[in-house]
């Protein structure tokens, strides 16, 4: 015999619904694919500062290091692991190729709920035009 069923059953239903939410909320939603970010444009767009896989996981660290080096230590040159020298500048180096914030930065960031505060100071690029 089940005591207090009028409290137990709704409680269980709510709990199970909450814990299985990721499954039933995604019923009927299109399958999720890796964000289709804009292809870089510009003269150096063949090769990024560091390899693509490294950039995908570490770009935020690199940007943070660049910010610290440029702003705090006035160090303006970055030597990549392949020996190539790059100008430490978000505006000129990064945005030189990745000139489309909406289709490059935002696509991944929005999809993964990342809200970087780069654009509090920097002017956001408008597009690839």
């Amino acid at each position, binding site marked *: *015999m*089940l*005591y*207090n*069923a009028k409290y*137990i059953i709704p*409680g*269980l239903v709510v*709990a*199970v619904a909450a*814990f*299985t*939410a*990721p*499954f039933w*909320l*995604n019923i009927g*939603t299109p*399958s*999720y*694919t*890796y*964000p289709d970010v804009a292809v870089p444009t510009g003269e150096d767009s063949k090769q990024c500062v560091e390899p693509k*896989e490294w950039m*995908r*996981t*570490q770009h*935020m*660290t690199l*940007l*943070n290091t660049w910010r610290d080096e440029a702003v705090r230590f006035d160090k303006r040159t970055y030597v990549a692991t392949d020996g190539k020298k790059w100008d430490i500048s978000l505006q000129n180096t990064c945005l030189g190729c990745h000139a489309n914030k909406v289709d490059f930065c935002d696509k*991944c960031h*929005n*999809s*993964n*709920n*990342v*809200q*970087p*505060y780069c654009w509090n100071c920097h002017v956001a690029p408008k597009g690839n035009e």
Partner: protein
Amino acid sequence: MIVSFVAALLIGLAAWTGSQAGLQYLFGMALPLLAVVVFIGGMIWRVLYWAKSPVPFAIPTTGGQERSLDWIKPARLDTPMTKAGVVGRMLLEVLLFRSLFRNTTTRVDPQNMRITYFSSKWLWLFALLFHYCFLVTFIRHFRFFLEPVPVCLEWVEFFDGILQVGVPTLFLSNVLIVCALLFLFLRRIVNPKLRYISMANDYFPLFLIMGLVGTGICMRYFDKLDVAQAKVFIMGIVHFSPQSVEGLNPLFFTHLTFLSVLLIIFPFSKLVHMGGVFLSPTRNLPCNTRQVRHVNPWNKPTVFHTYAEYEDDFREPMAEAGLPLEISLEEAQAHDNEKSGKPVEPASAQ
């Protein structure tokens, strides 16, 4: 403690090495799905088991003045008399850990050998911190399960990372949960009485959560994971269409394995207090034992035979023997006639 530490370590190592040896789908997909089934099934079984157990006595704890004379102020939330009061007490208990807030320690003052009771709020503070950080972390993880990400999750992340320290932004919940975990662990080590009563069941979940939190923090700040790719994999799980595991950090699978083991032992360990807190008779019964009779549900229904019924059975022999009757033979007959011969009476009156 050593056993649980080694067990947690082995689980982590197995997942870490296994996911590098091509067992990513085992640790990243099969085990988590199994864990979800065991967790939900186990919790339902556990709650139904509790709900089937009768509460033989009314055993609410009285945490303050019971309702008494008008001029004595009752503690409406600590000794609730009404259903609304019980709801209030449960909310205080579940959301603010009211009973832990009342925690005291005892110390003997060596100078005059007197016992002193101190209010001890450290456990309450760190337990509350731990649970709320865990909740915030749990909610934040929904960004991997939903597309598009709801705006409320953005607010959670915004306030969690409001200090804007570093990139990725340092989450306050990350810092606080580590502090809370360290406190909850060290208090079992430092306090001899607590160390004596601490069992593997106490340490093992702690080590698992440390592993879970540790791998999560590591993936966010140190040995980075491509979260976009992790989301593709996770969305593949919830859509039941496996995605590629190529290039995912082994720590990701270690993280999932710690979580899976935690979920699997959840219904069978002390962690089940998540559901149990709602079913504690000391908390969820109203303190009205002087007003309402609590009948033990497993008592057999009692068959009563009242004196009135006894007199009904033996009225005639009793009247013959001259025994005093509460309802005399004539009264009883008049009553019977009134009941059964009602249509007859008006006819005779005419």
